[in-house]
Structures are given as C-alpha cells and as structure tokens.
C-alpha cells in the first residue's frame, strides 16, 4: 500500500533493467509480439537490456506469472487484465499500449439465421467471463435471450477451450461458438460454419480491443526507461505489420512454428490477418464498455478501472515520432 | 484289488542346465485301493516332491504316472491356511468347493474340527493358533475334501505324542470307514509302522525306492507296542545303513 497513484515520471533515460521478461502467446492475435521477436525489433530497441521471452497458452497462467513476479510484461487479452486489476485492487499491472483489435464473432451451423433461431441451442465461448463470453452474453441480452452462468437459459453458453469447441462444432455437438481468430476463420473455412455476428459490427468504428500490452507496476516504477524501449519496439512492430503485411504474416507464422512446432495453414493465416487490426491504440472505450457489460451479465463485481491505463510512455514515443497521441478516455 | 496310484519309472528334475537338481530318479511304486502306504526317507530326499507329482501339482520329467481315483486330497507339509478366512472358514471352503450347502458345511466343519480336537476354535483366525493347531486345521481341511486318495505330508510333525496318538486313531477310523487310499510321509518310523500297510523307504538325493516293507501286525496297533517297536527298529537300522552309505 505504500505506492502512491501518480503518473509515472517518464523521465527518459531513467533506470534500466538488466533483463526484461516478456510474455506472449504463440497465437495470431499476438502478432506484434511474434513479429517483434522474430524480426528482432525488441532486441534492437532494448539495446543492452536482455529480452527473456516467456510464452503462455492462456491468460490465467500469464497473470499468475505476472503476479508472482515471474515476468515483467506480457501481451494479454482485455479480460484477464481486468480481472488481474480487480483482484489486485489496482496494484499489479498497468496497460501501457494496445496491440490488436477485432477478429472475433459468432459462427453458427447452417439453418441458424436470426438471433431467435438460437433458442435452445448450445454456443461455446473460450472461458467463462472472458471477452468473447461477455460479448456473447451482452449480445444475447440485447436480443432478448437470456443465458445463465451455469449453462442454462434460452441459450446454453458453454465455456470450452478452443480445441474442444472446434472439434465439437465439427461434429455437430454444439451449434455455434463465439471465438477469436484464428479459430473464427477455421470454423468458417474448415467446418463450413456461417458467420452470424461479426463483433466488429457491434462497436463504434468497428474497433474493440483484443490484445494489449501490460507491465507490472513494480517494474514500471523501477525501470521506466526499459519500458519505454519495449514500447518503442512494440510500436515499430505494429508499424511494420501495417506497412509490410505479407512479410509480417510470414514472420508471425515462422515464430508460431518455432514456438509450437507447427505453422498455421496459409489460408487460415490470411483470413485471420484480414479480420484483425493491429494498432498501438488500446481502444480504451471498448475496455470500459466490456467491463460494464460483464457487470451487467453478472460476471464481474463492480470494479473501478480508473488508472488501469498508463499511456504516458506510449504517447511520449508517439509524439517523438510525430504521431498523434492516444487517449485512455472512457468514451 | 485295483491299483489306484501307479508310479512307473518317474523322474523329476528341478531347474535346468548346470543348476538342475535331480530330485527323483526312476522311482516306481504302486498303491492299491484302500492301502495305507507310508513313505520314509532322509530330509530332502524327494518325499514332498513325490506327493506333489501324484497330486498333479508338478509335471514329471520322465516316466509315467497313472492315477485312478475320483479326487485327490493333499495335506501340505506347511499348514498353508488362508489368512483371510477364519479357522472354520478354511475348512468350510473345502466343502463349499464340492458344492456342499451352507448349513451342511457349517455342521460338517464343526464335526471335523471336533475330530482334530479344535472344537472351540472355529471362529479364530489362523494367526491366532499355535503351530500344531494350524497343522490340525490343515488336516481337517484335507479330510473335508472327501477325496478317495489322501496324500499327507508329515501331518503330525508338530504335535505332541498324546494328540498324535488320538489323531492316529481317528485317521485309522476314517481310513477304514471311507475306504481311503492313503500315501503318508513321516519321519517317525514308529508312526509309519503304527499306521501303514506298507512302509516304503526312499534313498537320499536323488530319491529312489530303497525298500518296501510289508507291515502285517493286526490292527488296532499301539505305537508303544513291542511289535511296532521291533519292526520300527528293523526299518531304522536299514535307514541308518543307507544314510551311512550315503555319507561315505
């Protein structure tokens, strides 16, 4: 409790860490990390600071690692970040940059054409209370369908890991799934699913956060200089993806193959990249809305997200490069 | 009288290669129906081996072995009771395996335990018995099998002289009443003479039939009678000579 809530003095050239331990997933939604590591952008900007990569398969493990001090920063989805913020009462982490937007939606079987057709059907989401789960429930609610946490109600919402959901859908054991990329594309391309809702259409400007970069507050306080360099690398990576889309795809896939022993199929990769937008803007408004939605479907105790963002360094970096600053405002 | 057990030129080898041990070497022996044959021989000469061959527990390594009997019961040298059953449970199991009904089982087991002088011990566990008591339970179990050929491996080895006398009488009575054929291993020469129609002497390793004594004394015999003592002395001398020959 001794830490005061004050904006980090982004004093350039402040203390530097010897190493920084960065977490990310071998997953296409973490493309800025994949590309940044693969192309050596982080190594470039970090200079003398050694980059130690840690990879995870799911958000909870990454947050556990951050909590325990096993990593200093990680790419992660909005929901684990919110949970981590709320569980640590705003002490464990800060969101310092955005990374990915879009790339989620509801894929259903043939024969389901309207929300009303979903009555009595089984729809999978990756995790109870995660971003997609909340999005699905909020959308159902808007459409006058209810779903409880235990899988009951008009629509059965079943939290299932991606592997299970994909197989279950392929076999017709479930009727649909609200999933992120690349599974969205796989459901459509491999299992002949139909995109009923593209989540983009539910958000202003079609933008909503899928992945962002968080840093442990302790690390941020101690080594703002290192964090700055990390963010520089990140921005570089995002820009590279924007300008060299094809090469970025190859780099991301190469990194995935290195980490998981198997690359994505080219058509899936291309489709997923098309649906995703990579941006350093954290799209704060969508995070606040998502949290509110979670509260409204009773998946989150009311939480004060004020202060979850610390975009000072990011804006410093952007300004230095002559770019517009981003905002952490709720609206 | 018909032959019930015909052991013809039987050889038994344990193990193989350089480690092989010849336990029985061309043993021939026939036992007629209703006969009581006692086997005598030095420790390790192959008596137990012979019984287990007759009971069909081991394969012979050579020769032929013929059994003409409905059912063979074997009382092992060690009591080998099942620890998970009570004393009477052990006896009843033998009855049960012959399809005797529950009530009959209980009754018959009680009788058998009475015969071996363990009336009140039916409810105990084997580990609560003394060595001699366990041996008697094993006897009761062997009798419960209701076999027509009864093989007994030193059944009274752990018993005091008095209990042994009593059981001699009981065994003789049962043998006579049920017309059993008995093959009886013992180290007690007097016991052999007391009980047997014949006493067969085996040589030391490898076991061979050394001599086959016919015991003609009229029954009932008494173990401390002079006839029994005299015959036993004769057999003992023969045995002693064999051991001496072997030792030289």
């Amino acid at each position, binding site marked *: 409790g001794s830490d005061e809530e004050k904006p980090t003095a982004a004093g350039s050239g402040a203390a530097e860490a010897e190493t920084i331990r960065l977490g990310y997933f071998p997953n296409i939604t973490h493309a800025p990390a994949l590309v940044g590591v693969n192309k050596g952008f982080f190594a470039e900007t970090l200079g003398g600071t050694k980059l130690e990569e840690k990879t995870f398969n799911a958000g909870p493990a990454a947050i556990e690692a951050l909590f325990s001090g096993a990593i200093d920063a990680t790419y992660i989805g909005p929901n684990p970040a919110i949970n981590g913020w709320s569980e640590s009462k705003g002490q464990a982490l800060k969101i310092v940059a955005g990374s990915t937007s879009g790339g989620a939606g509801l894929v259903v079987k043939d024969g389901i054409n309207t929300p009303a057709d979903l009555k009595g059907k089984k729809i999978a989401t990756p995790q109870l209370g995660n971003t997609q789960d909340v999005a699905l429930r909020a959308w159902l609610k808007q459409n006058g369908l209810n779903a409880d946490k235990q899988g009951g109600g008009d629509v059965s919402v079943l939290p*299932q890991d991606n592997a*299970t959901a994909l197989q*279950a859908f392929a076999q017709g054991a479930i009727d649909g799934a609200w999933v992120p990329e690349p599974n969205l594309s796989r459901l459509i391309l491999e299992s002949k699913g139909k995109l009923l809702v593209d989540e983009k259409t539910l958000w202003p400007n079609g933008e909503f956060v899928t992945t962002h970069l968080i840093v442990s507050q302790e690390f941020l306080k101690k080594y703002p200089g290192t964090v700055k360099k990390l963010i520089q690398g990140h921005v570089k990576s995002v820009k590279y993806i924007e300008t060299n889309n094809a090469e970025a795809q190859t780099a991301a896939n190469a990194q995935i193959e290195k980490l998981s022993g198997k690359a994505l199929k080219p058509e899936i990769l291309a489709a997923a990249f098309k649906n995703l937008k990579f941006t350093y803007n954290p799209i704060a408004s969508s995070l606040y809305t998502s949290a509110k939605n979670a509260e409204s479907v009773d998946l989150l105790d009311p939480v004060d997200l004020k202060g979850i963002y610390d975009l000072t360094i990011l804006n410093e970096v952007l300004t230095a490069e002559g770019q517009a600053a981003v905002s952490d405002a709720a609206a | 009288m018909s032959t019930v057990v015909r052991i013809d030129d039987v050889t038994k080898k344990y193990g193989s290669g350089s480690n092989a041990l010849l336990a029985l070497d061309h043993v021939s022996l026939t036992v007629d129906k209703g006969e009581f044959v006692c086997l005598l021989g030095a420790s390790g000469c192959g008596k137990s081996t012979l019984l287990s061959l007759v009971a069909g527990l081991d394969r012979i390594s050579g020769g032929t072995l013929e059994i003409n009997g409905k059912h063979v019961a074997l009382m092992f040298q060690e009591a080998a009771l099942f620890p998970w059953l009570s004393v009477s449970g052990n006896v009843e199991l033998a009855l049960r*395996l012959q399809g005797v009904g529950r009530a009959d089982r209980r009754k018959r087991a009680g009788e058998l335990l009475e015969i071996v002088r363990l009336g009140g011990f039916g409810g105990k566990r084997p580990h609560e018995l003394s060595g001699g008591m366990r041996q008697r339970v094993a006897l009761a179990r062997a009798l419960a099998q209701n076999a027509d050929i009864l093989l007994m491996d030193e059944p009274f080895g752990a018993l005091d002289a008095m209990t042994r006398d009593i059981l001699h009488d009981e065994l003789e009575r049962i043998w006579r009443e049920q017309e059993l054929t008995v093959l009886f291993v013992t180290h007690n020469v007097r016991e052999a003479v007391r009980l047997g129609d014949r006493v067969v002497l085996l040589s030391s390793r490898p076991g061979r039939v050394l001599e086959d004594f016919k015991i003609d004394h009229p029954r009932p015999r008494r173990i401390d009678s002079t006839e029994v003592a005299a015959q036993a002395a004769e057999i003992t001398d023969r045995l002693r000579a064999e051991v001496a020959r072997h030792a030289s």
Partner: protein
Amino acid sequence: MPAEVITDDKTADEVSGLDALELAPRPDRGDRGRRIWNSAWPKLLAVAIAIAAWQLVVLSEWKPTYVLPGPVDVFADLKELATTPDFWDGVRLTLTRAFTGFLLAVAIGTVIGAAVSRFAPLRAAIGSLITGLQTMPSIMWFPLAILLFQLSESAIMFVVVIGAAPSVANGLISGIDYVPRTWLRVGQVLGMKGLSKYRHLILPASLPSFISGLKQGWAFSWRSLMAGELLVIVPGALSVGARMQNARDLHEASLVISYIIVVLIIGILIDILFNTADNALRKRWGLTGN
C-alpha cells in the same frame, strides 16, 4: 508351582497399549473415545501447524495478499461457499460422477486385470499398454471422448474410466503376480478352477495390492474428472471441476485456495474410507500389532 502373587494386569495392559501406540498404526485397546482422540490430535496439530506457517508467510509480506491471501480471507471465502446451496449441488454432481465413474473403472479394470494376468498372450499383447494408457494426460482423451460420445455425460465417464481403469487393473495384476505359490497349490488341490479360483483365492489373496490399486485408481479418476468436467457443462449445477477452472480464470487466489482445500478434504475423506477397509483387512490377516 504357580506363585500366589497377584500381578498388576492393568498396568501391564497399559504398557502394552502404549507400546502398540508407538509401533502400530492403531492401538487395539483403550476405549473408543481415547482411540478417536489418538487419531485426531495429530491431524489437528498438523492442520494448526500448517495454518500457522501459512499465516506467518503471509505476515512476512513475502508476496502481496492478492497473490497469496491469508487464511482468514480464504476461510471467509470457504465459509461463504459452504453456505451456498449451489455449491453443494455442484459437489453432489461431481461426487456422483466420481463414484459412478470410479465404480465403472473398477469393474472394467478388474475384468481386464484378471484377464490379462490369466492369459499369457493377452498379457504379452496388452500388458504394457495398460501402463501406457495410464500415462496419457486426460486432456488427450477429449477428442476421442467427443468423437464417441459427443458432449454428453458419457464423454466425462469415458475420460474418468480410461484414466482410472488401468490403475485398478495394474493393482490387481501385481497382486495376482505376488500370490504365494503355496496358496495357488492349495487352491489347485482343493479343486479351484476358473471363476471359483478367482472368487475364493486370487481375489482375496491379492486384496492388499488391489486395494492400493483402487486407491490410486481413485486418485486418477478424480483428476481425470476434474479435467473431464470442463467438457460438459450441465445447466443447473456447476461441477467442482468447472468451478475450479473458473476460479483460476478469474484470478481469485483465495477462491483457488478454497477449492484446493475442498478437493483435499474430499480426497482425505475418501482416503479414510479406503483406510478403514485396509485396516479391517490387515486385522483379519493378523498383521496389526497385537
């Protein structure tokens, strides 16, 4: 010539009782109350020590409380859980699944174990496969489970049974392999064959090892169940497995610890059941210290 001196049987008994306490797991003498106390105080002490150590670590502020919450928080959470009827529904659901799955695994494992130890070619063919199957993480069975049973209760059962049956079979096989030869020979002489041999000789003789196989089987089935319960979520009651996963996903450290405690308690209660069986057996076999 027995002397007339009156011996102090009572004292000797007590000495013998103390001796038994020292050497044997359970004293045979003493009134019921004392026996319960004897087996209870070390448990209570252990729990007390564990909680005290935990509290100390928390007090040392080694980690922030949102990472490692203190006992007080956790017990508050636990109490809250225990007063939710929903939670008990979940426990009931999970335990029902666990028992059904376990019983099925026992039945199947017993048959397989008996068959494998009976027929040499079968043993050569699938003996080693049994251990191989055992080493497969339950999660790898999910695709097969879905393939065969869709997302039904049967899929969960499949995962549980395939996780636990090999243990049961292995326990039985190892028990059968170590049945003393003398007993087998006695059985043969008594005319045991086929089923009756298993019924009257092999099973009781291999019971100790079988029970320890059952215990392991239970552990496997429970662990497989915790994974398997993530497969199928039945509207209404949320199973313990799903709850545990959710607690982790929501990063509620104190809830995670609460569920660890719940699972431990269930595990311990089941172990006590097994131990009761085991002790009865050992007593029958005459293995407890006099």
